């Protein structure tokens, strides 16, 4: 009886320790973080006005000595000449992949049917590491006029939401789809400048009513396989630093 007790006690001790190790392993897992991640900081951090620093004066025009940025060479899709608005909307499939967004923005209409180039809204992709979501003022550039009203003349409910956000000066909390770990620094501008189509990594966004991650772009194998195919550097510090 005593033996059993001792054995059980020992076993329990060992089990607790093992559990602690297990929890610690999971707990300890982590990736290096960079707290400034999302480019629109939350809360009041969001500069509400046009000026990034309303409290101060103008920024310095830094002379980088590198000359101006050339117009994007993004495979012709920065041109607005192809835009063809109007027409009947594509039908929604029965089920939609991807997370529910605060405003049901349909890429399949804007990018697909109307053929608005990606860089029209996501213009930073051509000149920055980070890609931007269009500001609400960009949306309102059209939607101050167009509202896809129903037969009764009421604007489309999602456009109404957008107008409401804009009127209140509140940023739309889009749910993030693709997210690279903080220790990866992906230069969007290099890839746009190289003429790579956005769809290469992001999938056929122009066919997605609601955006979802088509493939795990955060998998390094995806990056390196393409780099190898094209003979681009595989130096680790191209992305990791």
């Amino acid at each position, binding site marked *: 009886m005593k033996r059993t007790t001792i054995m059980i006690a020992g076993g329990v001790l060992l089990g607790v320790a093992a559990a602690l190790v297990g929890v610690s392993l*999971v707990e300890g897992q982590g990736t290096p973080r960079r707290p400034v991640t999302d480019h629109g900081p939350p809360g009041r951090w969001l500069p509400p006005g046009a*000026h990034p*620093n309303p409290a101060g*004066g103008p920024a310095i*025009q830094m002379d980088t000595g590198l000359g101006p940025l*050339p117009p994007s060479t993004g495979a012709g899709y920065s041109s607005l000449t192809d835009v063809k608005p109007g027409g009947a909307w594509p039908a929604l499939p029965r089920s939609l992949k991807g997370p529910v967004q605060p405003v049901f923005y349909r890429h399949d209409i804007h990018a697909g049917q109307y053929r608005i180039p990606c860089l029209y809204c996501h213009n930073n992709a051509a000149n920055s590491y980070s890609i931007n979501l269009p500001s*609400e003022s960009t949306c309102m550039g059209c939607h101050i006029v167009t509202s896809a009203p129903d037969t009764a003349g009421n604007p489309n409910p999602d456009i109404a939401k957008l107008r409401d956000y804009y009127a209140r000066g509140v*940023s739309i909390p889009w749910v993030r789809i693709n997210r690279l770990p903080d220790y990866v*620094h992906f230069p969007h501008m290099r890839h746009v400048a190289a003429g790579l189509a956005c769809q290469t990594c992001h999938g056929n966004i122009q066919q997605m009513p609601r955006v979802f991650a088509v493939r795990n772009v955060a998998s390094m194998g995806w990056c390196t396989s393409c780099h190898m195919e094209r003979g681009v550097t595989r130096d680790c*510090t191209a992305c990791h630093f």
Partner: protein
Amino acid sequence: MMERRRFLQVAGAAGLGVAAGCAPERHHLRPYVNESDDLIPGIPEYYATTCRECPAGCGLYVKTREARAIKVEGNPFHPVGHGKVCARGQAALQGLYDPDRVREPYRRTARGMQPVTWDDAVARIAAALGTAAASGPDRVALVTGAETGALDAFYDGWLAAFRSHRRLRYEAYAYEPLREAGRLTFGTASIPEYAFAEARYILSFGADFLETWLSPVEYAHQFAQAHHYESGRMARFVAVEPRRGLTGYSADEWIAPRPGTEGLLALGIAASVVRQGHARLAAGADADRARGFLARFTGASVARATGVEEAVIDRVAREFAAAEPSLAVAGGVACQHRAATQTAVAVNLLNYVAGNVGRTVRYHATSPWDRVSGYRDARDLIGAMGRGEVDVALIQGTNPAFTLPASAGFAAALAKVRLKVAFATQLDETAELCDLVLPDVTPLEQWAELEPLAGVRSYVQPTMTPVFEGTRQAADALLAVAAKAGKQVGPAGATTARELVAAGTTPDALDDLLQHGGQFAVAPARPVRLAPDFARLAFQPPAFDGADDGLVLIAYPSMALFDGRGANKGWLQELPDAAVKIAWQSWVEVHPATAARLGIKNGDIVTVTSPHGSVEAQAYVYPGLAPGTVAIAIGQGHTAYGRNAKGRGINPLDLLGADATDESGALAFCSTRVTLARTGRWMEPATTEGSPRQLGRGIARAVTVAGALKGEVEPAPEATLTPSEQTAIAAAAASQRKRAYIGIYAQPNPKWEMTIDLSRCTGCQACVTACYAENNLAVVGEEQSVRHRNMSWMRLERYFHGDTTGTDWDVRITPMLCQQCDNAPCEPVCPVYASYHTPDGLNAQIYNRCVGTRYCANNCPYKVRYFNWWDYGRPGDPYFCFEEPLNWQLNPDVTVRTKGVMEKCTFCVQRIRFAQNDAKVRGVALKDGDITPACAQTCPAEAIIFGDAHDPDSRVSRSKQDARGYHVLDMLNTKPGITYLERVIAATEA
């Protein structure tokens, strides 16, 4: 991520672990409501402003990302600083993002500090001011730090509106002796501009012009221009001071006269110049008066009084006069005793007889120091407050309760004021005494216009929206108070400091000024004549309080903490003292002879007792002291102010008598004798110093000018390869290289290299703080610093060289950072390729691949790899150091490392890649100088050159060809990418 969450859910279901708080993370992307033309997420923006961390006023560019200030860099076009920033200036960010900042207005009540609204606070002040103004003139006191320009005028006008002239522009270091000496010698109570860059011989009487004195960044910049070695030419620098600090480390010769006799020595040198017939004096009454006055300072008498040999005096005099031009400066510890004004006068005379006045010593119509209030003014105010003559005291941007000696009675006097208002960024000692504490903005959030030099208008502008909504610039609040009280102050309708600053300019002109940082005109120098007043002074060695057999106490300004205002900034606390190399703690420097006599070792806690008080701190046995002195840095010993400052270390001002002043009324920091006693206790110093000697290893090398001319490198036989070894190794390396350089390595690549000119480096450690800011280095705190776990990728090693029993020794300082070795010993030992060599010659460290074997750190002979012992970047970790909002400062281009990961310098690879990507997208080639690592960018002495060594025309390629170049630990065949150019000592031509 997915797997991890799933696992946790399973684990939780199995009752294994506590999975609470592990809800799936959901990230949101928040777009701008309105697009900005300027701001591109991911691309930095820069705002020009002016540094306000000390009164020098260097020009700044503040780097912002996504509308947050993330780095302070220098404005290269600004006449103060020339694009360089010191450690304190860069740490302004930590003041901005200090979690201890006051976030809303508070009022002192019986139940402690209670939050109030701004409106309430403004109404209370306005009411009190109304009563005070009605009851008589000068019932209101306004205390600020040094102010010039628009805001200064506004403050005066504001005070006048309430019938008062009690204005104090209080600075702990107000340099009154210099101003008084200027009045006595040249009839102008002003501080001249010192042209270090032009001087060929610099004689400093205690002035710590590379640390805190007047304008340290600008002077370091100029000093390096004068004192660096180039083609056989360099200025000689002699330091005359009882304590050899960082500035003295750059000296080619150190003379330590008896404390207090520096002025006599200056007079002796001046007299010797005259005696030897080297005086450059125009004929006339002034010259005759100078000659006549100096005649009584014979070599023998001066030698007797100062303890400096007559031959040395004559030699220095000869050299000083022969240099064309030379420069003598007085300040610091040599100018902080009861004979301080005399010392400054003596040095003025020395400059006068050597013909330097008007050349390297230039007086202007005004100087920013003219109106700064000193100790005498502060005591006047204390007297007035103590007598109940002040009803309302408003204190902004200065902390007199800490920087005045306790014996001056500031706290008791302030208590007699009816309403005490502090405009404070932190709850410092002064704010704690006040009835109303109003949250002020930091210099990076405020508007001001300064005049740091005659003719220079330098603007201060907010670089971002205020971090805390509840804060308001003091001037805004004062405007509101005036409006509430029904007074009109400043330009009509002005309600903000911005309008005060903008007054008199058009919006376009203002934009232009703000983009350039200001208007930088060169004011002409003003001729001065010798005034007769100086001869009235006694020129006697100063008196010291305390028993005659005591040790003279030297309280000196801390380079990092200045007058204590830096004490709550982690970067500055963790920055090891430039001379003693202790961080986070206070220490008492004890002369080795004294230490031997009393049996004191490093770390022994000693009691220092003066007639005015007593403190306890650890001892540091320091050879850089005159015998019979002890030294303590000012800056620690706060009783309030914030988490990093409070209760840390000791304040040497507690040992000073309030009445110890000199003719100018300045407080004499070096005025008392103390006794030392061991307590028998010991503490482990938080020092970075392992061994203070380099033991013949040739890490920091130096030669004389003559040697440098011959192309000699100081031999370090143990650390250098023989020629036959070199040949053999080169052949082996070449054959290995042939088999190594395949794939991307075989393509034409740049090779990033660096040279560090030790004849320029002063050891100021601005580079260290730049690295902290750029690379998200963790601040580990005192406990971890004690255990040598600092994360500073760049460290300044300070070795004593020579026999340190006398004064004839020199200090070797070398910045040590990753050498980016071609044959890096750290690389092949990593099992997972986390450490490897990039095609462009960098020794890369891939943080996310690192598993933490630490083998690389063992195998690094330079010991420049730093391990994340804790999760410094994770909230909840015991050593988490980026507490909100400090994390706002983090550079988004650099990964924040987790625990268990090795990290190190990579020549700011993020800047390299950014520039390469930018150039590629723009379709242009990178030029030499397009990429600058943070350390090189900020180095005031421009000692660091970075570039592509494969480009034969790059500056770094040319610089590494210098005959003075050497590699540290060359015999290990690591082939470092950093070439050090050895220091050159301008030895005396005895």
